[in-house]
């Protein structure tokens, strides 16, 4: 497990966000130490994705601070944000692949944009990430519209990590994947953290894998984080909402 006393990579404080009259986040405080994995649990529609989008500046909060690697990104304009985003990779809940490009070009896209690499070097890097995700050579020239949901997800994963970012945000990376691939993706997140010191934030509905990979679990409910801490702490939580949520899984397995 990572040294949780190390400096924070992501620090959110007093975050509020509404869409019109709909209050989605009402005072979020969350700290993710550098090199650790934080899993966010919470019911559907509780605001997990909205919170994650604040971390990378896709959404601006109504109130509050979002500090990434020591810099508050909330007041930043597009140019400054662009610099910060070089530190990030993000896996979108619905993959968000570019549907005008095939699988290979999707994964190669960030490399072509930001690294002056030769096509040969790009080829090697793309292939290695696709291999990691178990995507065969025959999938490279397929377009996103012709892929299965699970394949799309894996291409999204490959694209998010191809630049070896310091921080990876995973919005439900394993939803819709078969159990074997799910384990595989969990392994990959763990390996990324252990071997490369990557900071990961993972939104998950899979409690088993959450307890498997997390240094820290944050439970989001009705716009606030009810409980945040190591998996053991969450498991012994006295919050009724957390208990109910966990019972659905532990109830069956204990």
């Amino acid at each position, binding site marked *: 497990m990572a040294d949780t006393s190390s400096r924070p990579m992501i620090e959110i404080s007093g975050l509020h966000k509404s869409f019109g009259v709909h209050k989605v986040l009402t005072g979020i405080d969350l700290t993710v130490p550098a090199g650790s994995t934080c899993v966010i649990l919470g019911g559907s529609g509780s605001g997990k994705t909205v919170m994650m989008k604040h971390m990378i500046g896709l959404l601006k909060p109504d109130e509050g601070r979002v500090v990434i690697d020591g810099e508050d990104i909330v007041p930043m304009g597009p140019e400054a944000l662009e610099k910060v985003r070089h530190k990030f990779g*993000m896996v979108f809940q619905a993959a968000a692949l570019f549907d005008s490009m095939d699988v290979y070009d999707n994964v190669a896209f960030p490399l072509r944009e930001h690294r002056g690499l030769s096509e040969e070097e790009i080829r090697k890097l793309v292939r290695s990430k696709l291999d990691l995700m178990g995507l065969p050579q025959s999938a490279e020239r397929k377009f996103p519209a012709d892929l299965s949901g699970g394949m799309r997800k894996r291409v999204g994963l490959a694209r998010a990590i191809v630049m070896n970012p310091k921080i990876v945000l995973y919005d439900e990376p394993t939803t819709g994947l078969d159990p074997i691939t799910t384990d595989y993706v969990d392994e990959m997140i763990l390996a990324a953290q252990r071997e490369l010191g990557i900071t990961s934030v993972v939104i998950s509905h899979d409690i088993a894998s959450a307890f498997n990979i997390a240094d820290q679990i944050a439970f989001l409910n009705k716009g606030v984080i009810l409980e945040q801490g190591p998996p053991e702490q969450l498991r012994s939580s006295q919050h009724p909402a957390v208990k109910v949520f966990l019972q659905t899984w532990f109830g069956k397995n204990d």
Partner: protein
Amino acid sequence: MASENAQNAESQPEQPSVLTRSIEGVGQSVISMVEELGHLITLGVDVVRWGVRRPYRWVNLFFQLDFVGVGSVFIVLLTGLFTGMVFANQSARAFAMFDAQSLVGPTVALVLTRELAPVFSALMVTMRAGSAMCTELGTMRVTEQVDALETMAVNPIQYLLVPRVLAGLFMVPLLTLLFDTSGILGAYAVAVGTQGVSAGTFITRTQQWLDPIDVYEGLIKGAVFGLAVTLVCCFKGFNATGGAKGVGQATTEAMVTSALSIFILDFIVGVLLH
């Protein structure tokens, strides 16, 4: 809308009269139009700002030049040809009443180059390329592909919008020229072929009356319209919300707004140039 208003009137008899409410309605739409114009201009400024910054998106630009320009050649030639033919046919019959058929050539040429060519070319580009731009950008927006670009530190305005708007700016004037050419050829064919105007008269009279200035006026208009319609279509698509339905609605609005802005700008540019 109408039935909704009627229902409101029934259930709430204390409400202001239909007249007051319709005036309010008009006022509201004027306000939202002005607001939207403000957003459009802001986006236009952003497009310029990101357009002059590196990296320049040559590949995307050439793709759009091809799509907007080359892809519209056939349809613009065809529209031009028929416009010229119809126009020559009508004006020849009108001029016949005064025994002035020699004026068919210059009349058609002047109106085509100054007005019809830029307006029709821009309309064809709106329908062909503008609608595609709006739906493509709208789909990219609602499926989070625009967000994905941003997370990869690629500015979507620079990557997506600048090439499209530049393509409109460069290609609509060129298409206007093609429209001029095919329109005058069509007029020639009808006037000389069916209306008994002699070829010599048509050509010399047209040359006599048509000034390069008239052609330039058309080109300037083409550039203004090209810029405006691509910007409007990109704006609508880029700000689409609400899934497939939202994209459809954005495209409808883009078509209406683009067409309207062509006619409004045609008047404004015409006044400014004289």
